[in-house]
């Protein structure tokens, strides 16, 4: 709750205690830090659905390397699709890998991004980790 400006916490507590004690209610009053954020981040809940895309020139070992990083961070892969493009001569040159993943509870998102980013650039690829809701929001007409 919000107390009138300038009213000390102990006065609030005393007033509440006086009314509520007869009902057997114990009162405690603590000032909220003015900067407390309103809602916790959702990424740490179990199995938050993310999508990881990896795009660039095709080469051996892409999937093996990137899934190794994912496994090391406890990321569960629930779907994988690959799209390739070809040169006019019919040789596969570029690939786009789309991983649908679930992040473990308490995942360290910045660390995961850094690890994935390092692996991607070491292979000459461009990667992007995004919560799945953004794709659903853009391509579906169901409510957010």
């Amino acid at each position, binding site marked *: 709750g919000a107390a009138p400006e300038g009213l000390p916490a102990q006065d609030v507590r005393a007033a509440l205690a006086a009314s509520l004690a007869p009902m057997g209610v114990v009162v405690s009053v603590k000032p909220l830090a*003015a*900067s407390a*954020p*309103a*809602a916790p*981040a959702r*990424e740490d809940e179990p199995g938050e659905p993310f*999508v990881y*895309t990896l*795009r660039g020139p095709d080469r051996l070992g892409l999937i093996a390397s990137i899934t190794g990083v994912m496994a090391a961070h406890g990321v569960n892969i629930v779907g994988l*699709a*690959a*799209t390739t493009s070809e040169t006019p001569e019919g040789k596969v040159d570029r690939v*786009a890998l*789309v991983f*649908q993943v679930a992040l473990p509870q308490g995942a360290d*998102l910045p660390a995961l*991004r850094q690890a994935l980013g390092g692996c991607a650039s070491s292979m000459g690829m*461009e990667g*992007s*980790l*995004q*919560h*799945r*809701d*953004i*794709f*659903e*929001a*853009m*391509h579906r*007409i169901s409510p*957010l």
Partner: protein
Amino acid sequence: MLTEREVLSTVEMLKGEHLDVRTVTLGVSLFDCQAESTSALCARIDAKIRRLAEHLVPACDEIGAKYGIEVVNKRISVSPIAVACAGQDADGMVAVAKTLDRAARDVGVDFLGGFSALVEKGMAEGDRALLDALPEALAETGRVCASVNVASSKAGINMDAVARMGRVIKAAAERTAASGGMGCAKLVVFANIPQDVPFMAGAYLGVGEPGAVINVGVSGPGVVKRALERAVERAARRGEPFSLSEASEVIKRTAYKVTRVGEIIGREVASRLGVPFGVADLSLAPTPTVGDSVGEIFKVLGLSDIGAPGSTAALAMLNDAVKKGGAFASSHVGGLSGAFIPVSEDLDIARAAESGVLTLHKLEAMTAVCSVGLDMVPVPGDTPAETLSAIIADEMAIGVINSKTTAVRVIPVPGKAAGERVSFGGLLGESVIMPVPAGSGAGFIGFGGRIPAPLHSLKN
């Protein structure tokens, strides 16, 4: 089930087509900051902005990273200062402007809008003080944006205020001559100003808005352009027809996707900060970057340049299709919500102005069918105040008669003539100085008074 095509098209929009959230703007009401003294007022304003905006930038960055979408700008809009600080004189208003500037800098936002007055029917004391303070406030601060609403469809046009604003703009330009008259780039004169615009320089938090609110503006002219190009190519490849009916559909569907980005980010930032979500402004807002241009869309639509014959019709279609797609995408659409045509802020529009294809006459016509007005238009430094006022009066008339928002953000660049160049830097861009039409309306402006509200405003 998400298809990989959907995922990859989104990624391409974000990485290759300049899709981003152009601004998340936190509105902060300052009506409860009134105090006996200027210093107490400024202290309350400062404390309130810091308290409410403390987590704005980190929340936007974190939520942006979660979805892989950059929130390019975080901004603040406040209650119209002429009203919120009505007891202040001009010096007090300047002090308030400096307070706003400092608070904006310290919480990490690049612009703060709301140093504003609403004078469509007449001026009150606070309005006069703010107008007196404007040139100095704009010269002495870097992040504060100002707006003055001089007309509305309900009230008509306050021609005294229109006359005054021509002089204010000249004074603001003179005081910021060293930066090319940059003070004027932070000042907009409006008809029918919306009270929830997230974009600068016209953002302010209106009366009737909640104590704090999040409004969001996305941007995707590059996405719309690429979608049109792909549709044209695909139709050609398959031997299918591609007419303006199809073009309008493509724009509408693309606008839906672009606006959804703003909706999801805006709602989550609002929730994280514990404030209500206000509106998504679905405008196509360009930046001076290749591929992020509204002007380029005109080329795909078959015009040689923006400003060529056909531009008004093309813009009408674009503006309308954007509104239709965006309206379906968001729970609450507001702000300006259309297509912007700012001359210096769009590489292609600036180029069309330089080549002479785009003139002030054509820009004026186009403002009748888009959601802004004459925006970021550099004109010769010796343009008389009365001419600036007459240009404003014309724009206001378009807005008032057509029940839409129009505005003027014009910069008379001191010491420069038509054909020379000016650069404002950053997002404000650069451009050639555009010639002003010949002839004078000084006598007309000299009459002053009020142009009455149009007949169609009698809706009671």
